[in-house]
């Protein structure tokens, strides 16, 4: 027995395994033309208020790749009205935009919606002669449309599934990396707390030995214990600040602050640390804008930025602090000539727990919280902090930007004076 090939069955089978729109279009296009013996077919997708002529197979070009409003064409009409249109003479039918058809061979057509209850596409068959579609042609095109509808649903499900899987994977990866960051941070925290504790513990043991401690050794002991205690206190303060910031409980107590004077003090305070590394720390001549801010917290911001610049500069380097006023903005810049920051790390400089160096051979101590605290405190001041590094060994500049405090309006001062004069003298 000869096996008869059934084009509709072939198309339905192929559509069942189609996984993307392009494949669906190609199968429908080929099958529609073969099944209806039409001179051309189109596959039209609904895209919001427009129909998109996604694909075609015809004796001469039709409208592939073009978009029309649903109301202006027959494919739109079948989708909006949820039923097919069989038109034996298109020029006798006012649903047809005649101008669009004049350049084409089309004289008659059959337009079939895909997914009857809520059309998402349409299949068009066109003839170069006047022809009323037969019940058989309408039937096979209807069957093909039903199969295409299922296939498009499959494509949609497949796309949704892939997107959902991707989303799930991204969420898992981000949770894993944030867990890893936290684990590394806890290990680092343990290290940073135990190291000064070890020093303090060893010195106390030494001082408690029976022998009398010479005065210079005692002086040294006290200095080392003090330094390491301060280191731990600072660590605990930073941790508390970061956890307060995370809980939204960091607050500031604002007063009028002169940034020029603030920087003079900050640079003075940084001299000892700078001297230890033979680094020249200078305040360059600049402006003295006033801002609203918390003096203690602003000192903390500046100290974190300046000590960071010193910490990451090589011995004998320099750190320049500069205050400038630019219209309504006040800008403090702290520029070092150290090794700079790698471009891929720059965006993460202010992130919690992030440090450029990791692993057991990192050269710098600390928890990597200083700049995170700076960012949080700057936000509370309505300001911003940014970092810039032009390249390796070209240093880093940290810019702190604030809004300048509005000077009191001259008018109000005069008015105040006048009111005082008017008030009765007691």
């Amino acid at each position, binding site marked *: 027995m000869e096996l008869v090939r059934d084009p509709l069955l072939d198309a339905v089978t192929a559509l069942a395994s189609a996984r993307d729109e392009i494949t669906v279009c190609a199968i429908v296009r080929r099958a529609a033309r073969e099944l209806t013996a039409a001179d051309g077919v189109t596959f039209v997708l609904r895209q919001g208020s427009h129909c998109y002529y996604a694909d075609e197979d015809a004796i001469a070009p039709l409208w592939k790749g073009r978009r029309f409003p649903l109301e202006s064409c027959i494919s739109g009409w079948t989708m909006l009205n949820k039923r097919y249109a069989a038109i034996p003479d298109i020029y006798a039918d006012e649903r047809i935009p005649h101008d669009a058809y004049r350049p084409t061979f089309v004289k008659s057509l059959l337009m079939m919606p895909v997914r009857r209850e809520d059309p998402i596409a349409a299949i068009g068959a066109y003839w170069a002669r006047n022809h009323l579609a037969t019940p058989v042609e309408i039937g096979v095109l209807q069957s093909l449309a039903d199969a295409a509808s299922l296939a498009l649903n499959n494509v949609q499900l497949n796309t949704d599934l892939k997107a959902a899987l991707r989303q799930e994977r991204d969420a898992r990866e981000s949770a894993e990396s944030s867990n890893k960051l936290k684990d590394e941070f806890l*290990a680092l925290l343990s290290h940073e707390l135990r190291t000064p504790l*070890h*020093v303090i513990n*060893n010195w106390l043991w030494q001082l408690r030995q029976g022998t009398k401690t010479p005065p210079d050794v005692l002086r040294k002991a006290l200095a*080392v214990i003090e330094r*390491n205690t301060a280191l731990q206190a600072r660590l605990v303060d930073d941790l508390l600040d970061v956890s307060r910031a995370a809980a939204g409980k960091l607050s500031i107590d604002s007063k009028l602050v002169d940034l020029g004077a603030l920087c003079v003090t900050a640079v003075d305070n940084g001299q000892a640390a700078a001297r230890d590394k033979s680094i020249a720390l200078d305040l360059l001549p600049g402006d003295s804008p006033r801002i609203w801010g918390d003096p203690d917290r602003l000192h903390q911001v500046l100290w974190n930025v300046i000590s960071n610049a010193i910490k990451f500069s090589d011995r004998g380097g320099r750190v320049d602090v500069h205050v400038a006023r630019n219209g309504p903005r006040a800008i403090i810049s702290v520029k070092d000539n150290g090794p700079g920051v790698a471009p891929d790390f720059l965006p993460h400089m202010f992130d919690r727990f992030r440090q450029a160096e990791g692993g*057991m*051979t990192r*050269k710098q*101590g600390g928890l990597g919280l200083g700049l995170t605290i700076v960012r949080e405190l700057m936000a509370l001041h309505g300001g911003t902090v940014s970092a810039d590094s032009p390249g390796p060994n070209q240093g880093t500049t940290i810019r702190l930007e604030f809004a300048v405090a509005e000077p009191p309006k001259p008018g109000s001062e005069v008015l105040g004076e006048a009111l005082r004069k008017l008030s009765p003298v007691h």
Partner: protein
Amino acid sequence: MANPTKVLIAEDYDDARDIMTMILQSAGFEVLEARDGLEALDAARTKKPAVIVMDMFMPNMDGLTATRALRDEPELRRIPVIAQTAQPAVISGSRELFDAVLAKPCSPDLLLRTISEVLVR
């Protein structure tokens, strides 16, 4: 009097190295100092210490890498190495490289006792 026993301290934190040196010297040892794993390897090769007290987190070469390198050199592989670290967890998988592992903060009593223990082994 016999020559004093040589102890090599590999420790990058100056404050920690200073006090440990002072304590070990008071206990009668000759102390050699190294600031990182590379200096430790160098000192081990040239000065042949009797025992090494090794920090783990150090710049340039960490203590774990330095100890692995020591164990690969026939001349040096028998020198006892005491790991003294603020993060014992990082060497939990390489415990067998070390003759002892001490967690910081570590009392000098425990360090001195551990040194005499590994020396008589």
